[in-house]
């Protein structure tokens, strides 16, 4: 028994010894926290996107004469770990600001941490509306097209269909719940006679696809709004195809056009679904062509949406730091208000009223080419056009 505490002591020495913060005046350090191991498909591409942006920026001489450096940390999909890592990045690595997060609850925890410690935070990917509205704060900006924005884009398409009876399928957590709540509200506004005949909310990752498809078919809807993604989506699509659910029913589906979720469907891809996503293979705008060419040249692989998000996040931070003339938190906050950034999706603007960027998404239809699915007939919806009124935003944000 005598030596046990010695182990503790050794462990502690290790903690202490492992720390050595190197301060270099000519480097701007960005602390990036994300769920790399829990969401590897999206975040592997995201990391590559960041690398590409860093190479471009530092190759061109950096920002204000300083090189950008990104220090990444894996939060293990856990808000508690994320907060500890933020502490670590700030105290030991001496980062100038923090960025990142994929999962909404982790993003919210970091946003709150940023407010508490008065540090700038750019939420790159978390989709939750709360991070800029109900729980928004002045230290937190968010880049990615939010749940509300993507839902509003799809609700507009859904209203055009003039279908009366809708079925709703969503994963049972905040993303699914809020997307469906928004969808119901917006569709009802556009089309007051709409009826929602069934709601199915399977647990994330554990959809009993056969039973859910059956229950939806038995409710005899004219159309379906779906926000399942990942393995749940693949299961749902296969069962739906086998059971003939999609033959006579129009499906409107969120995220499904993103390569991360579309590519695994391969020959199973359902024709004609209206989806939000990123048609990387056929998008020929000059910005995107340049981005895709650089990405393919560097990594010998096509870009996923994660790559666009990672790339644009670093570009945003570089633009913000340049405009602020440094990394002072207050100056950054001011610089991000109305900040314009060039991304592979075109120019985006960080809205001064709620710190949300206007990054949009592509809305189009799925087409099965025989062995894989692609997006066709798509158009870009600018994020600025799918926002609630400024008054509503102000009400939700309070006076933050």
């Amino acid at each position, binding site marked *: 028994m005598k030596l*046990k505490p010695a182990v503790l002591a050794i462990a502690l020495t290790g903690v202490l010894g492992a720390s050595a913060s190197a301060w270099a005046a000519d480097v701007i350090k960005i602390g990036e926290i994300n769920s790399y191991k829990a969401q590897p*498909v999206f975040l592997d591409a995201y990391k590559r996107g960041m690398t590409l942006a860093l190479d471009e920026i530092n190759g061109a001489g950096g920002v204000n004469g300083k090189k950008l450096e990104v220090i990444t940390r894996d939060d293990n999909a856990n808000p508690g770990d994320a*907060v500890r890592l933020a502490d670590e990045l700030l105290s030991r690595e001496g980062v100038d600001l923090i960025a990142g997060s994929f999962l909404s609850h982790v993003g919210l925890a970091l946003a709150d941490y940023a407010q508490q410690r008065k540090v700038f935070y750019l939420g790159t990917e978390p989709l939750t509306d709360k991070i800029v509205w109900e729980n928004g704060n002045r230290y937190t900006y968010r880049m990615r097209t939010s749940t509300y924005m993507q839902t509003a884009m799809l609700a507009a398409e859904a209203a055009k269909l003039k279908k009366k009876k809708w079925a709703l399928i969503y994963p049972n957590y905040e993303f699914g719940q809020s997307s469906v709540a928004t969808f119901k509200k917006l569709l009802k506004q556009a089309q007051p006679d709409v009826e929602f005949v069934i709601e199915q909310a399977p647990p994330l990752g554990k959809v009993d696809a056969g039973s859910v498809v059956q229950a939806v078919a038995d409710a005899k809807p004219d159309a379906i709004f779906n926000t399942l993604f990942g393995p749940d989506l693949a299961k749902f699509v296969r069962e739906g195809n086998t059971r003939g659910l999609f033959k006579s029913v129009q499906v409107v589906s969120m995220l499904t056009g993103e390569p991360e979720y579309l590519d695994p469907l391969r020959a199973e891809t359902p024709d004609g679904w209206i989806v939000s996503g990123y048609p990387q293979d056929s998008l020929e705008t000059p910005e995107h062509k340049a981005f895709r060419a650089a990405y393919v040249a560097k990594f010998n692989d096509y870009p996923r949406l994660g790559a666009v998000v990672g790339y644009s996040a670093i570009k945003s931070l570089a633009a913000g730091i340049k405009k602020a003339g440094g990394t002072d938190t207050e100056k950054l906050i001011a610089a991000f208000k109305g900040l314009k950034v060039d991304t592979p999706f075109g120019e985006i603007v960080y809205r001064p009223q709620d710190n949300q960027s206007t990054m949009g998404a592509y809305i189009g239809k799925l087409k099965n080419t025989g062995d894989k699915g692609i997006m066709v007939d798509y158009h870009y919806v600018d994020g600025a056009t799918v926002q609630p009124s400024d008054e509503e935003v102000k009400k939700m944000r309070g006076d933050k």
Partner: protein
Amino acid sequence: MSSFLVQLLNGLAGASSLFLVAAGLSLIFGVTRIVNFAHGSLYMLGVYIAYSMSERLAGGVGFWFSLVFSAVAVGFIGALIEMVLLRRIYKAPELFQLLATFALVLVIKDGVLWIWGAEDLLGRRAPGLEGSVEILGRNFPTYDLFLIVIGPVVLALVWLLLTRTRWGTLVRAATQDREMLSALGVHQSWLITGVFALGAMLAGLGGALQLPREPANLGMDMLSIGDAFVVVVVGGMGSIPGAFVAALIIAEIKAICIWLGDVNFGPFSISFSKLTLVVEFLVMAVVLVVRPWGLFGRPQGTPRHSGAPEAPLRPAGKSLRWFAVALVAGMAVLPLLQGQFPYALVLSVDLLIAALFAASLHFIMGPGGMHSFGHAAYFGLGAYGAALLMKAAGLPMEASLILAPVVAGLGAVVFGWFSVRLSGVYLAMLTLAFGQIAWSIAFQWDDFTGGSNGMIGIWPSGWANNRTAYFYLTLVLVVVGLFALRRMLFSPFGYAMRAGRDSVLRADAIGIDVKRVQWLAFVIAGVFAGAAGALFVYSKGSISPEVLSVTKSVDGLVMVLLGGVQTLAGPIVGAVTFTWLQDTVARSTDYWRALLGGIILFLVLVFPQGLAGFIHDLVVKLKPNREAAR
């Protein structure tokens, strides 16, 4: 009505899938008493191997061969795991194998990521069974009909193997009494390797058969293992027919929940579809409360083959006491070194909280002899309690820090009352069920607990809202907590608890109300876990359902086992080692999970008594020599 019947048919297909995963686990569980966390990983491997093979081999024959090949391959992997790893630690204290299989989960997950990549892999449809047949006016997948048949076929085959062959007789004998079997001249190790391989093969088969139904993905291991445990325990450990019945019940209840959808009862609307989040754990809780050994299980005998009997606990010697004092003093000066080691304070807070959490779990697990697989429930109740007392009731931090452990204690009063009626793995699984139920409530109750997003803005009061002050607050409370737990173990109550663990009958005979003592122990452990949870929430400023999750409970188990369940410093050493390792390893490599798993495997093989246990044994061994030298 026809929709209901077709849903029941869907349930049957689901039951077959569920049974196939669980059957192997039940077999392994029944014979070796190993809580095999890696069973879900073997299942996942089954899907991935089947995917790779079926993509390479053309035609119908190739596809079906791939499924069989995958099952056999996973069987081989299982045999390998048993021979290389588990066989070496059968003599370790009970449950220690759990730690090894936990490490395997980490290693296999990263291995799969490395080999197959991150993208989900949706396999082909089964040749010959691609389409559907019309049943009651609906298209029903032919493959699901095939699954409905294959479940009972596998059940029959395994049953015949166990009841009609000599090998099966020996396996059943091993389930009952391995020592006796060994005395009769049966070569046990091959028998057990065989059982493990067969169990792994069933897991692989279960996975391979899912290939046409769901994409191979990296989340399958954890998602399937929970279900598999539930089925095994509801059915009764080691009972294969029981597992089948349990799978049937759970799958049908799920199908019915989905069929019901949203139902209005007067002003209330219940979403049965959302209930599928937790329904299997509700079933398990109900079954275990009514039938403490599952539907088809029998009371377990005490295993005779586990490690050496535990030495009685002794109060700390003088030098250990001084060491503890020096350690606390050393930690107390840590803030002075903040300039040189700014991260030390941040991490120390997490280490201290982990130590208190692990010590509270150890309190019932080691000296109490009750293995809790749902200890995160009390940590989470404390954390949510503190957050809600502050956010909803408007109490200051100081008051909620005091009251939050009471909330956790109340939870333990309820859960403990049911749990202490059970023993062994059944008790463990009931605590797991309660943990999951608590988790699902926090996860679902948006208006009160913030749902899946949790709550934010829970920061300490002004005076404690800086790193140094909060560190001191944590240090004081954790040291007091650890001391109190330790002190209790040497009080009459602690002796009574240990007596109850070692022999219920003898303890009862000398007038100890064992159940009541155990219940009280549960509550005490809950209170201290709750205190750790409350400290946690104020150190992070936010809370989400993760604090109540199985992962958190498993982390606790890992800490206790890693440190050594038979020593009092074990949980502290384990908590510090594990938390620190995780923090350090996660930073050093992309494949940090595999590295962490590898380190734990190494520690498991080298220190089967746990880290503190090893040191303890070493000291005991050296002592007489020293005295002799005098």
